[in-house]
């Protein structure tokens, strides 16, 4: 079957910067050039999980026989095509584009806590040395600071109208919480009837925040930690909530968890998250956490003790019940939320200590 399918796909060739590459029907110039010879082509409105959109024109390349540069993310590769990804003309074109876009924004530098893709714009501006202010003048977008939601910052002064947020909402989430109003300088990303997000279809999955290349949409919760000192470290793990098992990166500054970002290569989620995985992480370092073993006193209150005292008392209690009532008087309940190692040792504890199968977990609740 697979061999047949392969045989059906016609392999074609083209050249990218004078290098011959194979490709199959349907691939875009951008896909062929960046995946096969590993060329770097700058993009702003591109997110490889979404349909290419062709809005920013930063990904332009030269195609032999075509006068104007073409957007590589939307143009399909064709047999015998000769593409140049880098030339003085292209680079100048890209720089001018960036200078113009930069001039419309209030700020180019945003904190990396803003979101997964939030540094894309700044990095390109720096790469092309585009902070020239050549086009200083009218600004675009107006911030929606009246939206009081605690998760998603809506700072449209920094919006460059790439529509990635709108597209991720529609294509990835299947929701249509946000849309585009107007065009040009007065372009605005809004909810239906311009309501607050809470009163829209928005589920606060945070996907728009994570795909925004400028920080115009920002992770308001992570941004609370702007003042916390230290480099942002990321630790790959899995969401602690439902059974989908989405991969996430925990962001830390020193010993503080400051936020969560989706893992674009997560096997179960490919970058998607919901409100719980995205925003409900701060229970971990909540002041209510238990920090010390506790033993209940005669009067019903708990007393803090050291581990040895607590563990000895725990074991003693089981020993007494064992002597008085026998092996089948002791029961273990494992957690459906703790890791394997917890559930495994719990069942082993019951089986190895008492020789019974008196163990269950909370799946029946």
């Amino acid at each position, binding site marked *: 079957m697979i061999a047949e399918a392969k045989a059906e796909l016609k392999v074609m060739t083209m050249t990218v910067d004078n290098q011959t590459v194979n490709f199959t029907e349907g691939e875009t110039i951008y896909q062929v050039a960046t995946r096969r010879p590993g060329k770097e082509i700058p993009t702003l409105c591109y997110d490889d999980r979404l349909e290419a959109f062709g809005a920013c024109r930063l990904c332009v390349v030269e195609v032999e026989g075509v006068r104007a540069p073409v957007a590589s993310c939307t143009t399909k590769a064709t047999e015998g095509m000769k593409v140049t990804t880098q030339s003085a003309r292209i680079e100048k074109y890209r720089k001018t584009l960036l200078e113009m876009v930069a001039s419309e924004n209030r700020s180019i530098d945003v904190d990396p806590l803003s979101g997964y893709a939030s540094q894309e714009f700044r990095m390109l501006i720096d790469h092309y040395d585009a902070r020239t202010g050549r086009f200083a003048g009218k600004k675009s977008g107006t911030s929606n600071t009246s939206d*009081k939601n605690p998760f998603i910052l809506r700072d449209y002064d920094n919006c460059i109208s790439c529509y990635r947020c709108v597209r991720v909402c529609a294509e*990835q989430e*299947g929701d249509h919480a946000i849309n585009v109003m107007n065009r040009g300088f007065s372009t605005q990303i809004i909810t239906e009837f311009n309501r607050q997000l*809470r009163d829209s279809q928005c*589920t606060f999955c945070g996907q728009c925040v994570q795909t925004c290349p400028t920080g115009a949409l920002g992770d308001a919760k992570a941004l609370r930690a702007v003042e916390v000192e230290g480099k942002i470290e990321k*630790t790959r793990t899995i969401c*602690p909530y*439902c*059974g*989908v098992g989405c991969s996430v990166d*925990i962001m830390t500054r020193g*010993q503080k*968890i400051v936020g969560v970002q989706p893992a674009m290569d*997560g096997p179960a*989620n490919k970058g998607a998250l919901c409100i*719980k995985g995205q925003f*409900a992480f*701060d*229970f*971990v370092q909540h002041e*209510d*956490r*238990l920090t010390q*073993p506790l*033993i*209940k006193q005669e009067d019903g209150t708990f007393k803090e003790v050291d*581990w040895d005292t*607590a*563990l000895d008392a*725990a*074991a003693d*209690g*089981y020993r007494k019940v064992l002597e008085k009532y026998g092996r089948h*008087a002791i*029961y*273990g*309940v*494992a*957690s*459906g*939320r*703790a*890791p*394997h*190692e*917890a559930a*495994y040792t*719990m*069942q*082993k504890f019951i*089986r*190895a200590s008492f*020789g019974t*199968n*008196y*163990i*269950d977990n909370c*799946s*029946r*609740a």
Partner: protein
Amino acid sequence: MSNPLIDMQKPDVIFAIGTNMTECHPVAATGIKKALAKGSKLIVADPRRIRLAEIADLYLPIRVGSDVALALAMAHVIVREGLVDLDFVADRTTGAEAFFEHVGRFTPEWASKICEVPAADIETAALWYGKADKGAIYYTLGITEHICGVDNVQSLCNLALMTGHIGREGTGVNPMRGQNNIQGAGDCGAVPANFPGFQPCNDPASVEKFSKAYGRQIDGEKGITKVAALNLCGNGIHAMIINGENTVVSDPDRHHCEHALKSLDHLVVIDIFMTDTAELADIVLPATSWGETDGVQTNTERRVQRLRKAVEPPGEAKPDWWIVSEIGKRLGAHGFEYESAKDVFNELCELSPIYNGLDWDRIDKGEYQWPVPTKDHPGTPILHINEFKNGRGVFKVIGYRDPAEVINDEFPVWLTTGRRLQAYHTRTQTGRSAGIDYLLAEESLEVNPADLEAWGLKDGQTCKISSGSLEIKIKATEISPRGTVFTSFSFADVPVNILTGSGYDPITDTAELKVCPVRLEAIPDV
């Protein structure tokens, strides 16, 4: 799940029953939305007009607890219309004849009276699913949390078997697991019927294997379930160890559960917060939390994935495995000399056939879905491809039963329970995450506006639900059908479980959390 999550984008027809997926498994629901965008058809059966129902091509607003009747009638239509996959049935199943004869009686008209949906819609659902090249079933606790939970699941399996919608890409019978590692707890043998890797406790070879591995003779018969154990507290069961479960708030019957735990001589609770359950313990031991613990968890598609530590735990908190092992050592049990989570996991892999091919290093990227029997095995994204675990797929002859309690003159309203997008379980975690309150600050009882008018109640008013004496704020919404009201079990100040859970499935002891007849009364404004 028999099939991987990615398969949600592939069926021609998706039959989602008893699953509020957009709220409970939001990222999985995006797969269904993508399938719809590609032209798949979606059938949703649920008492409430949930978001999934809104986007469905066919919505069956079935009465709570009537799932078996619906499935029987669908099977009836599939047989009558000659949509049975005869080759599949002949090659891979047994018991088909008796089942096909059995369903002859259960017409859509018959089911319509029980499910309260039009017979024509049941007919359509059966035709779509029956004719599909790839039909897939998805369900959650809306199916299992009933006295007939096992019947419900088996009815769905019957549908998949008769149409051959199993063992192929884009098909299957797919339960969505609620908690992050509930699948893993089962994999690890934290169940009364199985050792790790689903090796039965009443299989002599398995008993010998584990008795040898654990250095003492283990009983050769199944243990009792948690529900049974709670019933025996103070009268047979006298000590418990509970790990990270807020039993008192999540269990079916709160009073009963509290009373049971209080009558123990000795209760140890291991948790990250002082929960209502921990309050009842003699000893409370502080565990490390997510983000502080290295470990492993398995998702709903049997994918084995690594959890990693990002920060140090607070105070003296320790990993669960360390705490449990230390108590084990003190009781003289063997084999608790672990130095790391890795040691524990690798021991599990050695003892569990479905994990034999895995180890700590191999699961680093989360590529494997069990069973992975050997080191060179690629994992098993789709189950039952060429055969079922026990050979043939068995048709079960099942009849419809009413819920444990049904509505009557005194208690004329169906109450059903579930979860909400922004709250998780008993909110020990989401309730302590900043900002969640902005979206979901309190519990409410969702009632159809027309019912409010008929019952003389108002939106926003507090009412009393009886029997029991639960007070709760009313929210008018079209999501609730007439005659059925809904709330979640997430808020401790609205302990719905004092009302629910009078019946249990005779096979699994799963509580009837989903349906309960109630009466609503206005509380006069003070």
